[in-house]
């Protein structure tokens, strides 16, 4: 299912449509957002390097981590940043967002990025001007393409950081401009939902075509008090989370999927979890009080009931139930099963013995429902 997100980003935009946009949402209960973001980034980068994706380059707008961090991250996954073909550009909004270092240190080195990172990164000194940021990002992307044709992708490190510097509508403008740009293949961004008002979080849901949210896999009984039992639960939240995705499909329907994500030393893994099915559908329609469908067990039990008269139809001689003994008892006597041998000894002398056998045979059959 995380595969399907990466596939959707890889396939990119159709002609005449906006580029697919992914929001990765997390919260304090499930703080694995950045890991998922890094995973998606790495997957898309490997697709770009292998030439399998629609986009030929990636522009990463980094607010929360330095470009060298990203270069190292990609190197760990075997993705070389400074290869012969330029495929990634990082817009560095982390090192000096307001241009203060530049003013203080004057001519000195502003960004202490490593040599590798400085090759692919471009410093942005005024992040408050969102329009300029947007045009810088698009310029970097066009630079990646060079003279060739093609499209490029955008990744935004953290929308929360952007909202610190600018208003909601300017951030929304940037995202919609990136999405609707002719050369954009896909856009994705990270969001911490509990740091935002509901209305603002709803804005980013509105603007995206896929919403991936991380929720706590374990429901703590009382989230506030940190006691010994809660501590271990909270620790687990740093490693595991429930990952659910809402896809907005082209036909106007919404596809819901759910998985479990866990972070280990080796990396991030996604495993499928049994879905509880159609919770959205349940809220749209009233709950039916009586169930018209039979469950599996009920169907099997129904198949076991021997019909009283003609329509037994299972190849055995027809047995008419005459009300005295259960038919299963008769069948078992005829077939001669082991467990029936002892209890089938009929005491012809007293009616009570006969009855006890009858009851015992019923119990060992499991009864007829």
């Amino acid at each position, binding site marked *: 299912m995380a595969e399907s997100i990466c596939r959707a980003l890889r396939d990119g935009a159709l002609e005449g449509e906006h580029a697919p946009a992914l929001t990765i949402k997390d919260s304090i209960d499930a703080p694995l957002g950045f890991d998922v973001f890094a995973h998606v980034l790495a997957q898309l980068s490997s697709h770009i390097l292998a030439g399998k994706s629609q986009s030929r380059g990636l522009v990463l707008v980094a607010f929360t981590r330095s470009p060298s961090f990203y270069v190292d991250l990609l190197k760990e996954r075997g993705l070389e940043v400074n290869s012969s073909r330029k495929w990634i550009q990082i817009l560095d909004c982390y090192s000096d967002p307001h241009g203060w270092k530049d003013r203080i240190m004057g001519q000195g080195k502003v960004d202490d990025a490593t040599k590798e990172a400085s090759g692919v990164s471009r410093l942005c000194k005024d992040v408050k001007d969102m329009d300029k940021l947007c045009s810088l990002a698009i310029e970097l992307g066009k630079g990646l393409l060079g003279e060739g044709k093609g499209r490029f992708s955008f990744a935004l490190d953290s929308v929360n950081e952007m909202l610190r510097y600018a208003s*909601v509508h300017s951030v929304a*403008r940037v995202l919609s401009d990136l999405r609707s740009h002719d050369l954009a293949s896909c856009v994705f961004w990270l969001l911490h939902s509990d740091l935002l008002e509901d209305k603002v979080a709803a804005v980013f849901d*509105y603007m995206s075509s896929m919403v991936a949210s991380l929720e706590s896999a374990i429901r703590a009984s009382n989230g506030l008090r940190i006691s010994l039992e809660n501590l271990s639960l909270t620790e687990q939240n740093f490693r595991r989370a429930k990952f659910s995705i809402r896809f907005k499909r082209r036909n106007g*329907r919404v*596809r819901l999927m759910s998985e479990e994500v866990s972070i280990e030393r080796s990396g991030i893994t996604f495993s499928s979890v049994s879905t509880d099915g*159609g919770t*959205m*559908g349940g*809220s749209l329609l009233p709950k039916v009080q*009586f169930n018209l469908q039979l469950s599996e067990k009920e169907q099997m039990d129904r198949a076991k009931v021997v019909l009283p008269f003609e329509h037994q139809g299972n190849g055995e001689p027809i047995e008419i139930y005459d009300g005295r003994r259960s038919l299963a008892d008769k069948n078992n006597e005829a077939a001669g099963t082991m467990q029936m041998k002892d209890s089938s000894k009929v005491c012809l002398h007293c009616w009570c013995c006969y009855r006890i056998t009858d009851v015992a045979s019923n119990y060992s059959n499991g009864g007829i429902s």
Partner: protein
Amino acid sequence: MATPKTRASSFSRNVPSTAAPQMPGVKSGPNGTLFLSSGISDLDKILGGGFPLGSLVVVMEDPEAPHHMLLLRNFMSQGLVLNQPLLYASPAKDPRGFLGTLPSPVSSKDDKPLDRDSEQEKGLRIAWQYKKYFGENQPNSNGQRDNKFEFCNEFDLRKPLQRQFLSGQRVECMSTQDSPDLAALHDRCATFLKQFFRTDGNISGAGRIAIQSFCAPQCTYFDKEWHVLSFIRSLRSMIRSSNAVVILSFPPSLLSPSFSKRLQHMADTLLSVRAIPDEDKDLAKLLTGYQDMIGLLSVHKVARINTQVPIILEAATFSIKLQKRKFLVLECLNQAPVDGSSGTSYATSGSCSVSSKGGSLDF
């Protein structure tokens, strides 16, 4: 509904039918109201004739589905086909691009589902005597179909509208992204509506305004909720005195709840669209025709002008289906029977409960 009825009750205005204007695209209805078609014949039937002239139609969007665009597209195409001028405003930088997605009307030679129905009904005419008491199901389908085309067309969503309808004079487009306090949009609407000023004589023409995704987050006026409300209020007053219909769609989840409610109250006709989950086994079991459904349309308020009698709808929620992936139809929801004594389950299901009451338990 095609033939105007004589006085249905003492509360309805007695307007002689000779005063009705014979203008294509405008239909006269009860109580002296004039209707414009929404472009979807099922919706016109549900709303009792169409959108009344001089009313504001508000569509509440669902952030997960683009169904409001279907309603807007049909509305706009209908106006263009009938030569009614159109003003279109959207938050995109280049709104004219949207005009390329407007559907084209089907010609009468195309295979239409209506034909087969009327054929069958002719055979049953002798047995089914009660048809004469229904206003709409008259056996003279040919004449009626011509009349219907002058008012409401069937649109093929896969074919784009021909270029001739999109020529300059009839369509004006405007982007609402950059206007800080909606003054520009207000002025544009005012100049557009001046052409359709309502006088007591015969109407000369009717116009349509379509505003898409009002209060989209990328617009500069997004946070200025009081400005938004005062714009709607003045738009309403302009509309009342002109022969035009405004359809406006907005995403209610992006406004604060009190403002969203205020906006909804300002509407004359209030509709909402909702997305449905894909491949949902529960819904597939509970609803017939789930495979063709793409969404749900709910009618919350219907405009009633010149009368005190409200419209009581049989059902408030309809499913939006695409027949043969071309034609937009609205159908009542057909559900499995619901146990009548379960009062609590209705409360959780919202407006669907109205449809379930009317639907399958009528013996």
